[in-house]
């Protein structure tokens, strides 16, 4: 089936790559159908492209590669909603946010997107009381000794 997207033009998405989010994505409850696209073959980023709204695509990545020890305890209700009994085999993604200073990018560890590759169902869950942050910095320390970073005009006086 063909779908229009604003970023990638018209794309062909076979039925087995169409993911169904029965409750949409938090804040976007009406968007239920998505495809997950890798940004580029070597990229760490993925797009969660809406198949309902051509302009809507969320950026995500695999959190485990970047946050060692990340252990989202996914509850049974959330798993059953995507047709799974255990979190084994589920794909887990974190939403990415990138401010003007791209080194300050963060990922959302509190509410990952889980996808069941077997049932093609997905869901954005909330890990209540897990202590995980909505804005987990991915690059804690700016790499030093490089030509790097023209000073931002507003310096950060608060932390």
């Amino acid at each position, binding site marked *: 089936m063909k779908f229009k997207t604003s970023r990638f033009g018209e794309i062909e998405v076979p039925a087995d790559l169409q993911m169904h989010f029965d409750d949409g*994505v938090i*804040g976007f409850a009406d968007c239920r159908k998505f495809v997950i696209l890798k940004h*580029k073959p070597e990229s760490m980023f993925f797009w969660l492209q809406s198949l309902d709204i051509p302009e809507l695509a969320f950026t995500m990545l695999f959190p485990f590669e970047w946050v060692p020890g990340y252990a989202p305890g996914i509850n049974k209700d959330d798993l059953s*909603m995507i047709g799974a009994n255990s979190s084994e085999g589920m794909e887990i993604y974190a939403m990415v946010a990138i401010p003007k200073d791209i080194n300050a990018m963060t990922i959302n560890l509190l509410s990952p997107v889980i996808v069941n590759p077997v049932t093609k169902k997905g869901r954005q869950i909330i890990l209540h009381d897990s202590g995980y942050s*909505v804005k987990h910095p991915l690059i804690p320390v700016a790499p030093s000794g490089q030509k790097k970073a023209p000073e931002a005009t507003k310096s950060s006086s608060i932390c």
Partner: protein
Amino acid sequence: MILQRKKNQSIMIGDDVEIVITEIKGDHVKVGIKAPAQLSIFRKEIFEEIKSQNKAASTIESNTLDQLDSILSVKKKNNKS
């Protein structure tokens, strides 16, 4: 709608959502919620925060990702060595 409730009294919303006032201490109220599993329940401020992060995740340009890919791949290599 505004309702007055005492401790241990509850409110029904429809047939299957029950909200119970379980504890009142000064200006803190503990609320218990019984609802079907498919209903998502969250504190509003967390909901708003996630929503705004999702919005941020939906406004990223491809070339920004290219830049970050090159920054992060260097970082990854440095970490390994």
